[in-house]
């Protein structure tokens, strides 16, 4: 059984015990433990089940590569699935649960799948679920949905908060082991701004566990001094618990810092996403040990040899009294020595190599341990934990030579450099035959804007495993001057590549050799894929799901592609690797969102009167990022009631609309008139000072893009009103043409949208209200329709525009935004005697529809030209050019068959559903009803008390009086007569008083 040793553990503080639960059982650990070390110390060998066969799963690694130890962590608003036990720090009261089992971890129904393994081979889903087709929906999909996915989805709102941070550096060093520290020191001493990040809570990496000596002292002491030296330098930023997740173009590095993962609820942000722009990135990310593929290598108690060392040295956790070591290289012998040093038993070291020499092996032999050369594991014995191993000749087919009882197996298949960051932006790899690893090819790095290498790999991440060479490499690559720190290193013999153990294993053994522990991909599956014609490693990955689990194949990829290469009888580099993509390990959605949630999820634009509206029953409608009142609800009213009341009140007495969101762009200069004549379809240059004119803007393709009233302010300046949603877009459109096409025209623009609060004062009593405020002559004679004036109105600096979008007597008044609320309140107060009421966007929409005024976004959708909308009167025939003119002359846009704007009056007075299509006789090539038009705006008109609509109908204006049919949901057909779109006051008598 696994247990806590009586002494030792460099990372745990035995003075600070902590309690936590696993599947509801209370367990104990110490500060400094990871969930994995605490669980192992409590003899929790089996902590989950695999995805497909629900096989028992125990911790196999000690770091980010862990495929098995994934747990549900926390509760309620702090529950997170798939938390890696090996990288999650223990905290007091942690609630953990195993995943992928039902009903319990020990008694799991899904484990029956394992018995059916022969019938669930690679590509099973593809093969099985193809036929019959109807089975997919009713049989297969429900089955897959129920069995798919690890962990539960969090159901509650996340209680934590997150943030981003931008940082800049000459050099970012990723990895706080001895290579990273050496590189950071060298770069910092050269005067560079350095950021050094380490994904764990501790500096030093493997060297401090493996007893490396640097500069004549233990690595731990050297690391401490290095950190002190770096910490004292102004130009260095040090960051632990920070994982570099991805590298992007131009030295853009994303890193996720865990701030309060280990102190949940302390008020600090949970995580911080660092967005770092770096001159260059030094990746000192080390290497990951590979498992060996022998039968039963997935049974709990089989661990990586280096992980066994980590658990013993860092956390004083014994994986068991008797640990058999199986290896193809010298490094694993360090595990034997560590185990022997704490008094545990190593019954044997099984070494696949025929002959083993060298100081490490000699040291182990000298302690009386059997070193069995040319031997491997035929199979591991045990179910939910290891009970023994049966030994065979590695060169053979797996005949058992002897059985050794043991509690744990420490395996080492060699090391794979962590090349993820090197590869993210296109850095290439080469196959190092001697070391049996893919490592960065320094001649083919990811390059930056200057064409130079953007990423430099150093140390083990660069395929260098000996400590002395690691330090020299890191020092040199970082531009260090003088000598690199020196390290003592034992000589190591060469590795024997082992991809299957024993090398001649038959099918029965191969189907028990796990490559991908989490997704249950075995050697036999990859071989089957090869036999079925899969040659590309990318295709094989997806067919077998190799490397597609939450660990993204950190342990399985190299072994898998080696097996594939062998099956295809080609060398490993000919197969290559799958693509390394960010993130290195998953980062949580909260980190990506950062501060953007709740109130600050996205910018909410408020007019100066926003709070007043809120306090007076505003029912909000989003318009771009603005919120505008759709209507103002009074107690006891429904939305429709409020809208009708607002329309009637405005038509009959007086309404106020907050029109502040309308775009207001100042265009000024000697060429401004010429510019606006190009921008608008009609002529703006001839507009007299003091007058207003409605104008249309089209895209180069002729389609109507925006509309609004243009005001001539002075001889050389115009104020262009745009739609609420279009202000920024149209300003950009103007600047685009001025800066890129007509750069020599003397025109300046300024977007003054937010400078003014604008209020539409609308209705028969509008003039009375303004006259009561006083200060400006707003009479019919002094200020006729489509004119404007500037002055002081009721004590407010005001521009008054006599324009109307409702058909009523109407003034739009702009005051400085800072005075907007006061002005609005003054209008409300002074308007009481005239029956004033605020109205919202829906009343605005209805009133404009009653008048047949088009609305950008309703009558237009990017495929409509002004000519379709009966707006020919607003298109100059005289001008030689305007944006969209040539496009509108194209045959299709000039086609008389185009759908054109008409009014639609239902025969029964009902309201046609929005977007309804008018049908035509016959069917099209797809067997669908032919159509001849569609509804673009449709309302119940409170003024006329019937349904009114506008729509685009084929040759519509020529078909006045004709009745067309609109089928609606439920088979009902609405009949409507084609009429003029102007339903109300066609002569314009009401607005022109």
């Amino acid at each position, binding site marked *: 059984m696994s247990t806590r040793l009586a002494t030792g553990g460099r990372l745990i503080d035995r003075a600070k015990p902590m309690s936590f639960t696993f599947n509801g059982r209370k367990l104990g650990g110490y500060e400094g433990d990871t969930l994995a070390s605490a669980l192992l110390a409590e003899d929790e060998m089996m902590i989950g089940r695999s995805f497909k066969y629900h096989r028992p799963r125990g911790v196999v690694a000690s770091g980010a590569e862990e495929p098995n130890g994934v747990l549900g962590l926390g509760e309620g608003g702090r529950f997170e699935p798939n938390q890696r036990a090996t990288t999650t720090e223990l905290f007091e009261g942690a609630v953990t649960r195993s995943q992928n089992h039902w009903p319990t971890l020990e008694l799991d129904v899904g484990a029956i799948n394992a018995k059916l393994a022969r019938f669930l081979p690679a590509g099973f889903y593809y093969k099985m679920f193809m036929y019959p087709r109807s089975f997919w929906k009713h049989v297969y999909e429900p089955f897959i949905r129920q069995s798919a996915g690890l962990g539960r989805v969090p159901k509650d709102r996340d209680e934590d908060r997150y943030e981003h*941070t931008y940082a800049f550096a000459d050099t970012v060093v990723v990895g706080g082991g001895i290579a990273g520290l050496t590189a950071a020191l060298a770069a910092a001493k050269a005067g560079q701004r350095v950021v050094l990040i380490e994904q764990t809570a501790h500096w030093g990496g493997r060297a401090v566990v493996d007893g490396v000596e640097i500069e004549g002292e233990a690595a731990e002491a050297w690391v401490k001094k290095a950190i002190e030296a770096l910490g004292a330098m102004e130009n260095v930023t040090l960051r632990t618990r920070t994982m570099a997740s991805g590298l992007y173009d131009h030295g853009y590095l994303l890193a996720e810092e865990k701030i309060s993962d280990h102190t949940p609820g302390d008020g600090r942000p949970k995580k911080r996403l660092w967005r770092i722009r770096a001159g260059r990135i030094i990746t000192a990310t080390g290497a990951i040990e590979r498992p060996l593929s022998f039968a039963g290598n997935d049974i709990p108690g089989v661990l990586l040899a280096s992980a066994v060392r980590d658990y013993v040295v860092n956390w004083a956790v014994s994986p068991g009294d008797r640990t058999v070591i199986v290896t193809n290289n010298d490094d694993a012998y360090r595990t034997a020595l560590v185990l022997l040093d704490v008094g545990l038993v190593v019954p044997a070291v099984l070494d696949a190599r025929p002959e083993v020499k060298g100081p490490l092996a000699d040291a182990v032999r000298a302690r009386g341990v059997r070193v069995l050369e040319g031997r491997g594991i035929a199979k591991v014995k045990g179910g939910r934990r290891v009970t023994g191993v049966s030994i065979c000749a590695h060169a053979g087919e797996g005949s058992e030579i002897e059985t050794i009882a043991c509690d744990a197996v420490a395996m080492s298949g060699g090391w794979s450099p962590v090349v993820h960051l090197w590869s993210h932006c296109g850095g290439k790899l080469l196959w190092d035959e001697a070391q049996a690893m893919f490592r960065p090819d320094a001649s083919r790095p990811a390059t930056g804007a200057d064409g130079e290498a953007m990423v430099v790999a150093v140390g083990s991440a660069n395929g260098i495993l000996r400590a002395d060479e690691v330090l020299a490499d890191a020092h040199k690559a970082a531009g260090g001057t003088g000598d690199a720190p020196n390290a003592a290193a034992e000589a190591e013999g060469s590795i024997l590549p082992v991809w299957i153990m024993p090398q001649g294993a038959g099918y029965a053994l191969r189907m028990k050799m796990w490559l991908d522990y989490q997704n249950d991909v075995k050697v036999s599956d990859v071989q089957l894929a090869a036999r079925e014609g899969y040659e590309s490693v990318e295709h094989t990955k997806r067919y077998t799901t190799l490397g597609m689990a939450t660990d993204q194949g950190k342990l399985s990829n190299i072994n898998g592609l080696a097996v594939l290469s062998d099956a295809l009888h080609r060398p490993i580099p000919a197969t290559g690797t799958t693509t390394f993509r960010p993130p290195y390990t998953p980062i949580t959605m909260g980190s990506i969102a950062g*501060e953007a949630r709740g109130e*600050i999820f996205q910018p*909410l634009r*408020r*007019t*100066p009167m926003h709070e007043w509206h809120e306090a007076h029953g505003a029912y909000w409608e989003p318009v771009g990022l603005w919120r505008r009142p759709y209507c103002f609800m009074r107690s006891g009213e429904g939305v429709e009631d409020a809208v009708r009341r607002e329309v009637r009140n405005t038509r009959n007495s007086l309404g106020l609309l907050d029109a502040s969101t309308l775009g207001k762009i100042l265009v000024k200069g000697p060429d401004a008139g010429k510019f606006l004549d190009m921008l608008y379809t009609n002529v703006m240059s001839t507009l007299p000072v003091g007058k207003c004119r409605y104008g249309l803007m089209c895209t180069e393709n002729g389609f109507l893009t925006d509309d609004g009233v243009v005001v001539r302010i002075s001889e050389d300046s115009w104020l262009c009103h745009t739609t609420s949603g279009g202000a920024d877009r149209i300003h950009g459109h103007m600047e685009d043409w001025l800066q890129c096409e007509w750069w020599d025209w*003397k025109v300046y623009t300024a977007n003054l949208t*937010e400078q003014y609060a604008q209020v539409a004062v609308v209705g028969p009593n509008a003039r009375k209200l303004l006259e009561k405020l006083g200060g400006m002559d707003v009479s019919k004679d002094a200020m006729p329709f489509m004119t404007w004036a500037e002055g002081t109105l009721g004590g407010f600096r005001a521009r008054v525009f006599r324009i109307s979008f409702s058909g009523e007597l109407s003034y739009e008044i702009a005051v400085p935004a800072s005075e907007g609320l*006061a002005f609005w309140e003054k209008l409300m107060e002074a308007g009481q005697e005239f029956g004033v009421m605020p109205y919202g966007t829906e009343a605005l929409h209805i009133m404009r529809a009653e008048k047949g005024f088009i609305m950008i976004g309703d009558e237009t959708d990017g495929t409509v030209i002004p000519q379709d909308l009966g707006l020919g009167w607003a298109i100059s025939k005289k001008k030689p050019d305007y944006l969209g003119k040539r496009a509108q002359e194209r045959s299709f846009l000039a086609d008389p068959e185009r759908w054109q704007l008409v009014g639609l009056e239902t025969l029964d007075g009902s309201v046609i559903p929005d977007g309804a299509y008018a049908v035509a006789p016959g069917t099209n090539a797809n067997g669908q009803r032919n159509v001849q038009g569609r509804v673009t705006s449709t309302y119940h008109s409170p003024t006329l008390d019937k349904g009114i609509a506008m729509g685009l109908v084929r040759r519509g204006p020529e078909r006045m009086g004709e009745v067309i049919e609109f089928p609606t949901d439920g088979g009902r057909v609405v009949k409507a007569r084609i009429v003029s779109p102007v339903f109300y006051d066609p002569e314009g008598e009401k607005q022109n008083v």
Partner: protein
Amino acid sequence: MSNAVSALNGEVHKGFAEVAEAGLQGMITLRGDLSSAKLKKAVKDATGCDVPATRRIVMAGDKAVGWMSPDELLLLVPYAEAAATVASVEAALAGEHALVADVSDARVTIRIRGEKAAEVLMKLCPVDFPSLAEGELRRTRAAQVAAALWRSGPEEFTLVSFRSVAGYVMGLLEHSARSGSEIFTA
């Protein structure tokens, strides 16, 4: 003018740094030929400041001039003087192609104060604060909206954004300045 209220009415939050709306601030957009002698003189007469170099801000008492683009300046004057300054600059530039517009009411001005003021902004703006010089004006963004900022004191930044998103920007700053979320704790 007596009715004028700034976007956030002086809202203040104290975390590890203080964020406070600065109240009404006169602001004028001036577009024109920044190399013209007439424009230089108009700016000097109105504010006491020279035309700033690229990406700089020049301050003189309660007035300042910031470089916004190759043909645009931002003139900062007391709110009450903005309208008169617009008129005087317009008059001084008569006959020259230029645009002068009062934008005092289109903006919000927020000051971020404290030893760790830069850490608040680091979370929101892609700006290299250690290299942001005294007298440098940076047009950037605060999370999802446009902003401009500069060092306005030894431990103070001034940030300008649009009025309609004042609440959003203040929300960002309040969140980013909360105690316990200091970036550098040493």
